[in-house]
């Protein structure tokens, strides 16, 4: 059983982090980010060609994390590979010691740096979870028997608590659980009331939810997210203090605001998923402020 699964099963408030693999083969920066967060999180997500921008494969970085004695969460999107390739990578990852998987549909190719490429989407988040469940039962999607069963894969999925329409999001949430999702990491959210409404609707399923935390670095970033990231809304109460802080004080003020949010939502969910996006060095400080 993965440490992530164990932590959630024991009912511990569980913290996960996230890194994005580089475009190129120099991993210096990547390992530095890992260094900042590794002692404070149970497992680390590794993104899969995030935003449809081509980078080192998630699976390779996950395997290297395993070698370092750390626990990765392999993010798999359905944009770049069909069901043969994905199942084969899941088995390969398992052989390399990867146990946690986060299933995503993936951004469309046109969002990234290879917009002329062929969108695959043979599977999507729900059918990918179905594939993982099949493999865990000892068979593949074509119902062929496996030689050795990866039964202790821990499969997760994502959900957007601030999505509109929320009803459609909840239908898909239910479909993901039905397909085998054992934990959820959410899209970034900044309004405790909205998160509470969402948690009230999903707690009946008994599937652990880690609240997504994206540290707002500047008022500009907040505005960008409000305009371009679906289902994410940064309220003025969070933007204003950042705009009023001097540039030097901004990280401190930003961390304070995030800590306040985390303290507020902590009783509502089973953990948090921190996406620091370059601000990994502030993560320990943030967690200290939350007594986590």
């Amino acid at each position, binding site marked *: 059983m993965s440490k992530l699964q164990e932590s959630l099963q024991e009912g511990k408030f569980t913290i996960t982090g996230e890194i994005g693999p580089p475009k190129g083969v120099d991993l210096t920066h990547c390992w530095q980010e890992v260094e900042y967060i590794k002692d404070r999180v149970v497992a680390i997500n590794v993104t899969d060609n995030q935003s449809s921008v081509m980078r080192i494969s998630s699976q390779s970085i996950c395997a290297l994390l395993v070698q370092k004695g750390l626990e990765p969460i392999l993010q798999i999107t359905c944009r770049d590979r069909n069901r043969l390739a994905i199942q084969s990578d899941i088995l390969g990852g398992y052989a390399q010691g990867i146990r946690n998987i986060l299933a995503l*549909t993936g*951004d469309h190719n046109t969002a990234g740096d290879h917009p002329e490429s062929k969108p695959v989407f043979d599977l*999507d988040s729900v059918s990918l979870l179905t594939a993982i469940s099949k493999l865990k039962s000892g068979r593949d999607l074509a119902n062929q028997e496996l030689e050795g069963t990866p039964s202790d894969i821990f499969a997760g999925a994502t959900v957007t608590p601030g*999505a509109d329409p929320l*009803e*459609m999001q909840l239908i*898909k949430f*239910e*479909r993901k659980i039905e397909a085998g999702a054992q934990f959820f990491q959410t899209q970034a959210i900044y309004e405790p009331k909205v998160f509470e409404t969402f948690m009230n609707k999903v707690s009946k399923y008994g599937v652990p939810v880690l609240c997504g935390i994206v540290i707002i670095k500047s008022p500009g970033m907040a505005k960008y997210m409000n305009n371009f990231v*679906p289902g994410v809304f940064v309220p003025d109460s969070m933007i204003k203090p950042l705009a009023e802080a001097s540039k030097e004080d901004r990280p401190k003020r930003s961390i304070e605001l995030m800590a306040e949010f985390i303290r507020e939502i902590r009783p509502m969910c089973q953990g948090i998923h921190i996406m620091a996006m370059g601000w990994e060095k502030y993560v320990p400080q943030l967690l200290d402020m939350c007594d986590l």
Partner: protein
Amino acid sequence: MVVNVPKPEEEVKDLISEYSSIFILGCGGCPIGCKSGGEERIKELENMLVKEGKSVTGWQLIDFLCNKVLVGTRLRNHISKLKQTDCILVVSCGIGVQATSNMVDLPVVPANDTLSSQGMQGLWPSSERCAGCGTCYLALTGGICPITTCSKSLINGMCGGQHDGKCEVEKDRDCGWYLIYEKLKSINKLDNLKKIPKLRDYRKMDVPDSKRNTTRWALEKAIIYEASMEFEKEEE
């Protein structure tokens, strides 16, 4: 020619099981060339429905269901019947099913599966598109095609890229799943989303060689012209 084949009878029975009164609408274009439609098939379906204990409120064959104006004007003659109808069983390719759904505020059920439109094309005069997935989902998706309206052709619902009802690919492009959600909500059929199979079978897109060689574009056959003219005389 948009190649389409009859859905397995058991599947049609399953799709109409929740409705009690049904109107049958057939296309006099490609389905006739494909031997998957026309008056004969409509009669077969009518018999099947009656055997299943359903009431058939009426039927109509229209040349080119892909032409929404034609669909609208011809269906106008049946308004009293349609008011007593729970759903329309549409004998056409996926475009005809979508065009019907767009013109009439009733659930639609496709009687056919559409395969790739290889060779000559059928008419696509409006916004409806059919990718010929061979697994017509329109009965479950409110007559709006997830394969052609969703930029990722997803069948399991909206992805995270939907923003104010628009797609992440183009800011003016409607999110297909948003349209499907709104439509299903308006006809009180959101539960349909739980019934969609989770995986696609891409083999079904392939047109078997036999179908490629023997089907003809309906207009190539004078006999079909005559048949439809006769039908119009009858109507008058």
